């Protein structure tokens, strides 16, 4: 007799046969297929952090790949694992993306041992972005603590490249020690740009440190804030952005004009694995960029 049930082959669906593009979120696609990519350069930043320049090998896929500042990718080292990493390069830069990675676990340790030319896998981009388009015509405060400069670097580039869209721009950065400062070779370049104010502070100075010493909120006192026309982007550990956001709230900046990027454990990037849930909000879908009002409404966010 004839077979009663016929196999249904999902790979024959029209949607899934389209070229892989994670920006088309609603379509059926090979969600776990990675873009094979090559590490084209490795730049040593500190003892713990390296910057990886990564290029998607397939020309068409590389051309299609686009992201907004604040989004992240899943980086796979086949045989080791997959980790979420925020993109640190300019969204307008098409050839490669830059990923600032701290040596912290299994996958990042093997990445730190990797040589130039090694093929890795990239999926994404995922998550929400800083709504820079809304900030047009306003002052912008770009504030980072520690490793927070990695996700902040994409909006910094975007603001610099579109400088005339904004009024006053302040970049404030703080770390524990001078040796932990990321991208310190770029500060001079950023600071020399007319009308961009860069301030760096450390909690503990050393013999060579000439800059200010203290908490990042000390830098805020030096900035003249016009609360009605200012947006803030804050990246860093929860304890830091809590202090900064409370300070800015007191200055009068509305909470829905402050944006933070949250860090959580992630295994999928697509709202499936639940590992990044805060209360029950997926950091990978509704975040990692949240406005501060949303953050204080999330249970156990900070």
């Amino acid at each position, binding site marked *: 007799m004839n077979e*009663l049930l016929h196999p*249904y082959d999902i790979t024959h669906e029209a949607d899934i046969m389209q070229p892989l593009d994670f920006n088309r979120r609603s379509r059926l696609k090979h969600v776990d297929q990675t873009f094979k990519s090559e590490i084209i350069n490795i730049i040593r930043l500190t003892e713990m952090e390296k910057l990886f320049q990564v290029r998607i090998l397939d020309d068409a896929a590389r051309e299609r790949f686009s992201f907004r500042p604040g989004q992240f990718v899943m980086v796979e080292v086949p*045989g080791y694992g997959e980790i979420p990493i925020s993109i640190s390069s300019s969204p307008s830069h098409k050839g490669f993306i830059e990923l600032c990675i701290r040596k912290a*676990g299994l996958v990042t340790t093997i990445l730190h041992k990797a040589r130039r030319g090694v*093929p890795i896998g990239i999926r994404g981009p995922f998550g929400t972005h800083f709504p820079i388009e809304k900030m047009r015509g306003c002052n912008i405060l770009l504030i980072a603590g520690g490793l927070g400069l990695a996700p902040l670097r994409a909006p910094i580039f975007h603001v610099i490249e579109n400088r005339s869209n904004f009024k006053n721009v302040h970049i404030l950065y703080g770390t524990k020690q001078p040796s932990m400062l990321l991208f310190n070779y770029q500060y001079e370049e950023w600071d020399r740009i007319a009308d961009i104010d860069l301030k760096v502070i450390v909690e503990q100075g050393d013999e060579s440190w000439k800059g200010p010493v203290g908490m990042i909120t000390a830098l805020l006192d030096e900035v003249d804030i016009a609360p009605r026309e200012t947006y803030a982007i804050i990246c860093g550990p929860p304890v830091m952005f809590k202090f900064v956001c409370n300070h800015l709230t007191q200055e009068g900046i509305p909470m829905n004009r402050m944006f933070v990027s949250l860090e959580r454990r992630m295994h999928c990037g697509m709202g499936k*694995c639940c590992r990044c849930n805060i209360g029950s909000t997926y950091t990978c879908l509704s975040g990692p960029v949240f406005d501060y009002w949303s953050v204080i409404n999330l249970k156990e966010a900070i």
Partner: protein
Amino acid sequence: MLFKTLSKKEFRNLVELLLEDTEVIAPRQIGVNEKSKPIHHYLPVRKFEEIDLDYEITEYSAKSYFLPFRENLSSCRFEDDDWTQEIHYRLKPRVLMGLHSCDINALLKLDKVLAGDRFPSPYFISRRRNTFIIGIDHDPCEGGFCQSVGADVVTHGFDLYLTDLGDRYFIAINSDHGYNILMQVDAKDTTGQDNKDYLEVRQRIASKFEPLNMHNLPNLMDIEFESEVWKKWGSKCLSCGSCAMVCPTCYCYGVDEQVSMDGKQGVKAKQLYSCNLLDFAAVAGGHNFRADRETRLKYRYYHQHRGFMETYEEPLCVGCNRCGLVCLAGINPPGIIRDLQTEDQV
């Protein structure tokens, strides 16, 4: 929806037809528990006699056939300094039989997350579309509160749905597939008597439930977020994750990669996880966002009754109480929900 009736003899013929060339999964008794109650699992069957449709509840839910405990997401072949990725989805059709309304409602909820509009999962959809589902009505289970969460009836999410009318089954048909297969045997059009008998059975089942007060639970979850209730139940939790394993709707997972002994093959696999396990929310650098067991237990309930409600306007829980039955510490949803409801009442 179309309805037909089928004599029990013809039903046997239908199942035997399916058994001829398709894998059939059905409830099978695998033993008895310490209270001499039968233990059932959804397992592959070869003969009609192995199937026991008159069961109360299976220890594991039917989820296992859509979200297996471990599933390969992709494999990798390593050659010299390079690799190639391969991805396969499960294609083989299979019949899943004897699902109660809670398990079918659970699949509908999983559909929303895994087959919905944001990043639909090809792994899940492929399994779902290749599974022919035959459900069946049953009396309320001990401790079950499916009626209180609206999961005691189903109107879709299956191919055929049976209601036992004694000598025959009343069958709801929800797909052309189901209709075609039913046409292979001697299915009868429903009569006025069939309808009357069916409605009587449904009424009888519905009247047997003991209601659980779910009123205003999402708000209560927020209000009682710091409540002692979580300490009381959380301090019992062994953080073993059994509740999530047997739950028909828990879908969270972890991803890990393994390499073959010769180093030539790698596999990226997802494995079902549980938010009660210690490292569920631990991040690089050592910080754990939910280091206490009561926070993790609370999070599980918060997701089921508050978070899912917020997104999909229904709770994730289907009220089967499998987690309550399997928990070695005796943690059960009706107990926790009753405590939450009475916590701040004088």
